[in-house]
């Protein structure tokens, strides 16, 4: 990359930025491999934001760059309106993060590990150890050695470590990893409760179902590049649509629709049809399908628009990208 500009904006607009995370042209290379490729990311404050991508897409690398764990090769970034890495200490003062699998000193207790981390933060952090442990449900195991903790308990301890700094922004990398269903449920509730306190939670994950349940907005990353971002509802509204039609004569119905604008992809089922409509198709298309079938004397028993899941949309988007690339 010819431009090597880790530009730093003035820190004077700390509290005026509407974005919890803001990056422009952020790039990180490992040799010839571009792990983070010209990323433009805007994470609004006060929401749960999902950063989605397949394995190896560069999710963790972006988080590491944001947190100053590794250096960016180009681009600008800010956390809570404070530019990093220039004002990294100020920016991270109100940021908590888990990157990769949370690991701690195994020979120390959970509380002692938090004491070490609190000592590196501001003085008030030391007074938040108990409340953080309470909040993640680890108070009763706080005096056990971490080497005896399960993966899920270490995840919770990681979240407790994040809470020591009373963070306005939490960045959680695959927080559901290693959690059982109950643990995932608790983690989801915790994230939602943090968001309800006006905190921003940015979580990276490949568990799309969990992200869909938890997050308000997402960004999709593939091969180091952000290919889509925005509120989930908006993104899904623009996704391809699927309509199930229950009718009297599925084969004849397909023949009727095959000559219409909806004939591109129709699956015949025993009780009707499954019609795949391209993204951007409006709801009027459903009424038009009904009209065409009825006019041809086919009895229509029901019409159902199948809600596109984030997962199927994600697959659409990433596969489309693959085709284009």
């Amino acid at each position: 990359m010819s431009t090597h500009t880790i530009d730093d904006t003035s820190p004077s607009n700390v509290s005026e930025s509407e974005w919890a995370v803001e990056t422009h042209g952020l790039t990180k290379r490992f040799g010839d491999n571009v792990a983070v490729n010209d990323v433009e990311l805007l994470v609004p404050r006060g929401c749960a934001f999902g950063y989605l991508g397949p394995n190896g897409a560069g999710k963790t690398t972006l988080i590491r760059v944001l947190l100053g764990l590794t250096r960016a090769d180009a681009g600008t970034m800010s956390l809570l309106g404070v530019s990093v890495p220039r004002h990294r200490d100020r920016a991270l003062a109100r940021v908590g993060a888990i990157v990769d699998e949370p690991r701690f000193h195994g020979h120390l207790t959970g509380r002692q590990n938090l004491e070490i981390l609190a000592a590196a933060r501001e003085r008030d952090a030391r007074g938040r150890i108990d409340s953080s442990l309470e909040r993640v449900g680890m108070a009763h195991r706080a005096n056990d050695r971490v080497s005896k903790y399960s993966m899920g308990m270490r995840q919770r301890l990681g979240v407790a470590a994040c809470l020591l700094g009373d963070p306005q922004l939490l960045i959680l990398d695959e927080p559901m990893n290693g959690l059982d269903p109950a643990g995932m449920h608790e983690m989801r509730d915790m994230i939602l409760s943090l968001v309800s306190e006006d905190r921003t939670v940015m979580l990276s994950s490949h568990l799309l179902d969990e992200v869909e349940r938890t997050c308000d907005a997402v960004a999709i990353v593939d091969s180091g590049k952000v290919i889509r971002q925005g509120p989930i509802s908006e993104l899904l509204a623009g996704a391809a649509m699927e309509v199930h039609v229950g009718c009297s004569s599925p084969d004849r119905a397909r023949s009727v629709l095959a000559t219409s604008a909806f004939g591109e992809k129709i699956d015949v089922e025993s009780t009707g049809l499954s019609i795949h409509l391209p993204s951007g198709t409006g709801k009027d298309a459903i009424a038009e399908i009904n009209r065409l079938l009825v006019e041809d004397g086919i009895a229509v028993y029901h019409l159902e628009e199948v809600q596109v899941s984030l997962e199927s949309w994600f697959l659409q988007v990433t596969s489309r990208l693959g085709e284009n690339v």
Partner: protein
Amino acid sequence: MTSVANSPAPAAAKVTNPVSRDTRGSWIPNGAMIRTRIMELRKRRGLMAAMIVVNVGVPTIFLLVRIVAHIVAPKSYGPAGGYDIFSNLVVGIMYFFGFIVAATLGCTAGSVDLTDGMFRHLVITGRSRLALYLARIPAGLALIVPLVAAGFTIVCAVCVFAAPTKINYQGVPVPPGLSATGFNHWAESHPKEAVCGLPYNGPIGVQVPCFINGQGTVIIPRGTPGFKNISPATLKAEALRVAEQNYAAYQKLFLYPSVPLMIRTGLWIELEATIGFIVGLGLASLMGQRTVPVVLMIVLEVILTPVFSRTAIPHLINAQRGLVGLAMAHLEPSALPHGLGGGGGGPGGSTLVPESLTVGICVIVAWLVGWTALGAWRMVKRDA
């Protein structure tokens, strides 16, 4: 790229201003960081046990056994303390093993955050990486220095309070601290011990086949006339000649270590332990692991330092002078034996590669500062 302009309304820009007096950007570690770092190291039971055993346990057990043996069988086992025991324990055990244990502690302190996965958590706090590194130095020294001091204090106490009442000079029990006149008087009053036990360079007028046994008693082989044919005046005169020749060697013997020697020796082994810790810390931080640096430190102390301190290689002599072990050997108190080829009574007694005191001090300072700088640099630049 899809804009997120219509995403959920961002919360009112509300950032609690970072706490005033928040000094996390400073390179100076705070007290809490040092305290928790001490706690982290102190809780490593295996390492702490090794440190205690080497610095306190081994000398204590050794002295305890000698005390008990002396109480049970005083004729077979000499007193537990004394100058010889002091110098052997300090140079033979505390100096070498203290260095290795201190280096192990340094290597542990320099690498565990990385290997345990805590480094990342610590960096995310926003604390200066340099401060994170520097916090380890006082923390480690707060553990190793008192332990070395404790072990050394025990050695000093036993060596002083359980010292022998007589010096064993050439196998002959002699009162300590005599002046030349006093030594001559002792020889005149113990002429047989002087003539039979003390070495004499030159012809001696009394030709008696005698020697001193392990209990300090004069033994005359059976069948020989012994001293029957020698007048007391002749015997005293010969004893006086022998004493006069031996006084120079006798006056270098001590019953127990003097206070100045103990202070100098204590500072010397503390400095050695400090060097071991600081170098180990820097090396482990540089390499990002513990095992290889520990092995390298042992190789440095046990192989490289003894070899290159004693053998001057003409083309490499300046490189040899850069060895911290050589510099430390030159700082060895002169009243100690040749532990590293140093000490042992000054000019003529040393087998070390020559080096001035100023150069030696510069080398030690350079090692301390250099390894700290290298370790800190790697800590600051390392990907977490």
